[in-house]
């Protein structure tokens, strides 16, 4: 019996929905037959039907509504810039996969921002070095090197931006263009 419960845990929501649907139809038909033929089991069948429906309701609340609310809360956190909160759904079904995708989104967003931070930090250090060198009464050696590194940082930053595709925006090497004809006379 416990193995039955365990396999029940790993079913997809779609499969579970079909099971509830199937049980409902079956019990309804049996109960109808029971009424037609005035069978004694009719009352039992009707009670079973109600039990199945009630279970379906609880199931829907616990496995669909509650997780959706928590997934929604997590995406709101992310929209507000809190990239540290994780969606805590550890299931293998459709909603579990949704939660996992949202976590992946959060991770990617964090990664991009940290990338920007890191490169900004490097450029900042190079700039400070360059300023120091310019202030000193020494030859301008090493400055070219620093500027070259800053240019490389700039390229790397643009590379990461280019790895995404954008809504209504097309990025060319030097410019940002609108995809559609917005604003132009049609």
């Amino acid at each position: 019996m416990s193995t039955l419960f365990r396999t029940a845990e790993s079913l997809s929501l779609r499969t579970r929905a079909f099971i509830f649907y199937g049980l409902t139809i079956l019990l309804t038909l049996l109960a109808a037959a029971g009424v037609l033929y005035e069978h004694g089991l009719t009352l039992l069948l009707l009670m079973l039907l109600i039990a199945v429906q009630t279970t379906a309701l609880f199931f829907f609340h616990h496995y669909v509504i509650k997780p959706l609310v928590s997934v929604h809360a997590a995406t709101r956190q992310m929209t507000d810039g809190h990239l540290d909160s994780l969606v805590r759904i550890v299931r293998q079904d459709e909603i579990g996969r949704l939660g996992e995708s949202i976590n992946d989104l959060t991770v990617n967003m964090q990664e991009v921002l940290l990338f920007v931070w890191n490169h900004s930090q490097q450029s900042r250090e190079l700039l400070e070095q360059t300023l120091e060198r310019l202030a000193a009464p020494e030859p301008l050696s090493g400055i070219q090197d620093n500027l070259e590194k800053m240019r490389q940082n700039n390229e790397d930053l643009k590379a990461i931006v280019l790895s995404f595709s954008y809504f209504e925006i097309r990025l060319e090497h030097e410019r940002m263009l609108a995809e559609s004809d917005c604003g132009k006379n049609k």
Partner: protein
Amino acid sequence: MSKRVLVVDDSSMMRKMIVKLLQPPGHIVVGQAKNGIEAIQLYKELKPDIVTMDITMRDMDGLAAAKEILRHDKDAHIIFLSNLDEEIYRAEVEKLGALGFASKHKAKEILEMIEEEEGKK
């Protein structure tokens, strides 16, 4: 020489960038893992030449995964790629053995380290 590489990072975008970095020199990405547990499993299945390992990951971080992979195969070549400041984590990495540590954002460093790892063999 082209290597077979297992890329481990919890960000799918970072994995994409590392794959893009490794392809022009001709290296082959044999697999991608998004946490330490997958990394260990894929290492055992694929036996790559090199593993690029992110440090901060959910479920199991890179250092723990590296320890486990080294227990399984003490000749594993693991290069840690991270956002984190090298100095702080270099000590941890050294403790695990003479493996590589590179910044995720310095592409050249990563490629150089891969060439170097092969030379050490």
